């Protein structure tokens, strides 16, 4: 696959390197330093950084503004966009706004339901869904058209991605659903956090059987766990999360003060194992409010330094 956009992430992937991405959650306030500090910690260890869009429906600084800050710092941001809060006018408009700052990556999502957040009494929009947002960005980029049919002057040049959860229900449509996202226009996929490596490998095999690995880059999602408590919480409380008992037990088996290190070790071992899986094109390391650990994970897995691409 050759790169079609100026996205650094796409160029790294197109050159055949294992890509590394990470994510930063914008602050619940307007302090620009928060995002800059997080970005500073990880910028030499990743190819691109996702900025979440009001994740779990908690009102935060907007993803677009935070992406612009990263871009001005010289990073390659991935603009996450959920279809929960904006209709097709606002989504297209924000895509153009991002493109005006040469933000070259977008991740299309539906977003958590607003009932999880701080505005549970609010409306949701869902004018289009995540697949239709993929189609929209591709239409804007490839055909230079708005949804309304008019031409766009200086169309956005965006590498278009989507999320996939290999562990969500029902399992039988996980791969058909991925195929659907690919046909809607997804060029890269960042997966849900993987703890059940066997099931992930099964999913990868099923997607390879359909040849999807040749059509889309899969970035395996990983989140190091800080404690056995976090492992148990993710297992029980987070929808669509598959944390096997072995992982919880392994975390619980070490003393509390060493659990964080154990979580990092588990993450590093998972990356080492998944590197060998055909079709895995890179890793999406989501160290939630633990960005300072990203360099260690990247170094220990031999993914540092990041390749230079022009």
């Amino acid at each position, binding site marked *: 696959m050759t790169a079609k956009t100026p996205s650094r992430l796409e160029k790294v992937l197109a050159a055949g390197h294992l890509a590394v991405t990470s994510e930063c959650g914008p602050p619940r306030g307007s302090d620009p330093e928060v995002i800059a500090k997080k970005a500073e910690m990880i910028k030499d260890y990743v190819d691109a950084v996702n900025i979440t869009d009001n994740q779990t429906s908690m009102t935060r600084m907007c993803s677009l503004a935070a992406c612009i800050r990263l871009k001005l710092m010289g990073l390659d941001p991935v603009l996450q966009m959920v279809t929960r809060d904006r209709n097709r006018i606002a989504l297209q408009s924000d895509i153009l706004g991002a493109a005006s700052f040469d933000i070259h990556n977008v991740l299309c999502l539906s*977003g958590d339901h607003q009932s999880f957040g701080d505005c549970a009494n609010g409306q949701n929009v869902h004018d*289009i869904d995540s*697949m239709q947002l993929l189609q929209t960005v591709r239409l804007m980029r490839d055909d230079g058209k708005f*949804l309304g049919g008019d031409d766009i002057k200086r169309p956005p040049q965006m590498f278009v991605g989507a999320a996939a959860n290999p562990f*969500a229900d029902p399992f039988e*449509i996980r791969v058909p659903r991925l195929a*659907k996202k690919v046909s*809607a226009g997804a060029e890269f996929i960042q997966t*849900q956090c993987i703890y059940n490596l066997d099931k992930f490998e099964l999913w990868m095999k099923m997607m390879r059987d359909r040849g999807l690995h040749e059509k889309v880059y899969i970035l395996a999602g990983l989140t190091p766990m800080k404690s056995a408590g976090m492992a148990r919480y993710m297992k029980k409380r987070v929808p669509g999360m598959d944390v096997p008992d072995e992982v919880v037990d392994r975390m619980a088996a070490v003393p509390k003060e060493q659990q964080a290190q154990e979580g990092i070790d588990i993450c590093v071992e998972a990356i080492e194992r998944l590197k060998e899986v055909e079709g895995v094109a890179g890793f999406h390391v989501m160290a939630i409010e633990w960005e300072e650990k990203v360099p260690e994970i990247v170094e220990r897995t031999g993914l540092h330094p990041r390749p230079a691409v022009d």
Partner: protein
Amino acid sequence: MIVAEKKPIQEIIEEIKTHDSVLILGCNECVTVCEAGGKKEVGVLASALRMYFLNKGRDMRIDEHTLERQCDHEYLDEIREMIDQYDGVVSLACGVGVQFTAEKYTQKPIYPGVNTFFMGVTESRGVWTERCQGCGQCILASTGGICPVSRCAKRILNGPCGGSTTGNCEINKDVACGWQLIIDRLKALGRLDEYEELAPIKDWSTDRAGGPRKVVREDVQS
């Protein structure tokens, strides 16, 4: 049917307390079936209100009447002769009936006696669930007869989202994932291959988004 729920009596008391005579007006259609605003509910509410105001030492006239429907001129006309006896009307019809009564009797304050929720079904006695949001462009043919607009919390047309767990929606374990139902149904019909067809971006202009809607049938117009 249109499903509604009785408003708390206290709220109705607040609405009408300045009047001296009030008509409680029920509806024999949907709100009777969902036990929110039929003849019986009219009787219970009227009785409760009479007791409340009498106990407060108020000489308040509260009468009961139930119409066949409140969404048709011909039935609403029935109360033309009697409505002037009252200072106000509490309508136990759905929001449609309340408004149509208000439109017809412009001089009379009309108060809602129920909260109107959705178009739905009686799942079992005392349990009603939503089925349709009246988007004006039915897509049930391609979704196995199960509507993602009304049964998915995000009205996702290409679902399910990542929050679907063991057949349930992320918002509440008691809510079935609409897309799980669609997939189960497509499978039962031997049509799971249709799942991979992308649902196009929906034209919402026939939905609420397009503004107040109107259906005109010239062939049946008088």
